[in-house]
């Protein structure tokens, strides 16, 4: 490896990275998620046992991360589509990146408040 620096791209490049990483993460989660849901065909006990083992704080955090990934990927996906379709969006792509993060925050905060409440708040 040659000792080069990391390219200092702007918002567009970092959102590309985010989109890729979240896409892959969601994909692998989805594989697992379908497999575990399939256990409902095996027996209620099997399903509940596995789902029950997910109900740990650690897994709760993973779950939160997943939701974060989906939200980011989804909103950024909309931004990408907008950029491809409209010249206005293309010229304002940087501002749109911030819009994505704001929309993300707006949904994430109430979700986290509720979700972490369930995760750590007992039940």
């Amino acid at each position, binding site marked *: 490896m040659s000792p080069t620096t990391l390219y200092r791209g702007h918002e567009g490049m970092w959102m590309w990275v985010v989109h890729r990483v979240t896409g892959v993460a969601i994909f692998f989660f*989805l594989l697992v998620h379908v*497999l575990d849901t399939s256990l409902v065909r095996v027996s209620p006990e099997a*399903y509940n046992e596995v789902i029950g083992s997910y109900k740990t704080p650690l897994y709760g955090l993973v*779950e939160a991360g997943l939701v974060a990934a989906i939200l980011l990927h*989804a909103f950024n*996906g909309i931004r990408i589509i907008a950029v491809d379709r409209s010249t206005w969006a293309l010229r304002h792509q940087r501002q749109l990146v911030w819009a994505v993060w704001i929309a993300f925050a707006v949904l994430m905060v109430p979700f986290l408040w509720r979700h972490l409440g369930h995760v750590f708040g007992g039940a």
Partner: protein
Amino acid sequence: MTAQSPTRPPRVPSGRTRHNAEKWSWVFMRVTGPVLLVLILTHLFINLMTGDGISQIDFAFVAGKWASPLWQVWDLVMLVLALLHGGNGMRLLVNDYAQRPWLRKVLHGALGVAVIGIIVLGSLVIFTFDACPVDADPSLLPSFCEDVR
């Protein structure tokens, strides 16, 4: 640098373009994306935000949902689109990063198997799902099973 004589690209007859696979893949991502947005966000909202959130999820919850054909179709469409969208996205990644042809083949193959396998499995589960299996502990089942019995 060696002397180079530019090679002219192979000429194709004028007219509309012919190899459109990548174009359709691109369009597909853009069509399925927004649909998935609606499907997934609603799914997440119902599962994680209403009622008791994540703690409510158990066999009874799932069975309760799938009692309605709406949620059956919903989850099925979501499953298929998400896998096709995600699978195609992964294919693009493989194209970008796997330089060696054999590796590319192997990874594409694995992807195909995984996507088709999971779609088949998921559809089977949704359609052949029995909310009230006879030999199960009744306390684990959704409440409506009592009526069925």
